[in-house]
């Protein structure tokens, strides 16, 4: 049983729409069942729920890594079921993803990892370096431009992953457990980083099981319980300072 999130919200353009979405892998049981919600452009949402509730699958559906077994998903007003393979790259370039396990390319430097989306988009190499170096400075890694992922700490890797996700200024930023590998202090700092991105107009969706951390922020939540239901949680009072 699903429910609409913020049904009375002002008529901001809908960026993501899930309608009765079900998802199972292969012949396995459904990981998500009857999930319905909408996310408006420019909003900031947390996706919460215990481990195994289907948060990562929900984000994989949103970043077009897989297609739903049933139901309707629209992204940027497009029904993903009707998208051809040729249309996928252009849509994916509007989405930035921070993966739970970072997924940094081991043999590339931090700078080269962050530059990947720009290279994919066809940016000229001479335009890439300055832009990437500036962003890595912004996330506090100015001294690690040429460091390989193996030499970076968990928090540093996470920031490289975030920089990579936002380098091409995506309209929608998805982050799967971005604070899962760092201590609380760094986790808070990372979430403030996402807030800053949100302030400049990026739609942010963060999946996390850390309810305590989420409670420090005033953004709405989409709660999954074993993938079976989506619970609309009212915006909590902001406690973050």
């Amino acid at each position, binding site marked *: 049983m699903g429910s609409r999130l913020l049904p009375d919200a002002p008529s901001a353009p809908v960026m993501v729409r899930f309608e009765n979405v079900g998802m199972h892998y292969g012949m396995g049981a459904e990981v998500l069942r009857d999930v319905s919600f909408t996310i408006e452009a420019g909003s900031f949402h947390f996706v919460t729920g215990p481990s195994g509730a289907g948060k990562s699958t929900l984000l994989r559906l949103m970043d077009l*890594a*897989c297609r739903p077994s049933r139901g309707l998903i629209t992204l940027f007003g497009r029904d993903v079921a009707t998208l051809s*393979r040729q249309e996928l790259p252009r*849509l*994916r370039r509007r989405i930035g*993803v921070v993966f739970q396990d970072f997924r940094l*390319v081991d*043999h590339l430097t931090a700078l080269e990892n962050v530059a990947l989306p720009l290279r*994919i988009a066809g940016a000229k190499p001479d335009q890439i370096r300055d832009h990437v170096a500036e962003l890595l400075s912004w996330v506090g890694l100015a001294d690690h431009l040429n460091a390989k992922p193996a030499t970076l700490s968990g928090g540093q890797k996470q920031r490289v992953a975030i920089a990579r996700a936002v380098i091409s200024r995506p309209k929608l930023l998805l982050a799967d457990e971005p604070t899962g590998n760092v201590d609380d202090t760094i986790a808070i700092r990372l979430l403030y980083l996402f807030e800053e991105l949100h302030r400049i107009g990026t739609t942010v969706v963060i999946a996390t099981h850390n309810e305590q951390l989420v409670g420090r922020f005033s953004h709405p939540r989409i709660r999954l319980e074993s993938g079976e239901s989506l619970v609309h949680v009212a915006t909590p009072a902001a406690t973050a300072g």
Partner: protein
Amino acid sequence: MTVRLKILPLDADESSRFLPWTIAFMTYLAALTLAGAMGLAVAMGRFDPEQTGNLTVEVPPVLAVEKNVPDQPSAGGDEAAQDTARVAAALQLLRATPGVIAAEALERSEVADLLEPWLGKAAQSADLPLPTIIDVTVEKGAEIDTGGLAAKLAATAPGTSLDDHGLWFARLTTFVNSVQVVAGLVVGLTCLAAVLTVVYVTLSGLAVHHDIIELLHLMGAEDRFIARQFQDHAMRLGLAGAVPGLLLAALTVELLGIAAGRVDSLLLPNIRLGVAQWAVLALVPLAAGAIAMLTARATVMRRLGRMI
């Protein structure tokens, strides 16, 4: 020129390490086969009567004619003078024939030299009755009735024969064409083996680097962006193998040429390659690189087309 970033660490793949060796061996075989086929074509070009425009007339000595024709009355007298007269008559007839540029009788010593590979020093014996060979040069494009001319020659100097090399050349052409078809098959099979090897290496690379490829897709990479990584890699390895493979083949061809040059040219015709043939061989590494590149690209595009 911008060096493309190697996003996929394909150089570290185990399967990639042997590709240059495989391509080198295949290039070596293909280049040798091509060189052989082209060398035969060159040699055949030298033999082509259409191109050389030569006829050969053989005037046997009177003694031989008498033995072969029992009813022929013995000429008696000075046989040498008769032989000279027969040759002179044949030369006169040939030189008077329209389309014939020149007709020259080979010296006895030259004929003996021709026979020496088979008869040894005995060919130089003055007692050995040798036919007189007349080398006839025909104007290019001239249509000579060889049948009629042969009949006239036989009437002028009985026992004289005319050889336009047609039958011999037709058989040689058939043989050379067969060899060239086989050579084409060998080159084709070599290319096919190279293609299959590149397909295997590429599929292996796709499997090994599946995670990075999926990541690139999720970042919005098009299939051709990923394919470029593989095709650059395959072309680099292809050239790295093909160039030394060709150099080795060229060395082999040269050594064989030198060895062939030491053998009597009458037994083994000179089949050294010309500039045009070497130019064709120089294209082999480029072709190998192109085949590797296109195969890798096609393999990646086909396989990625099945992914979401």
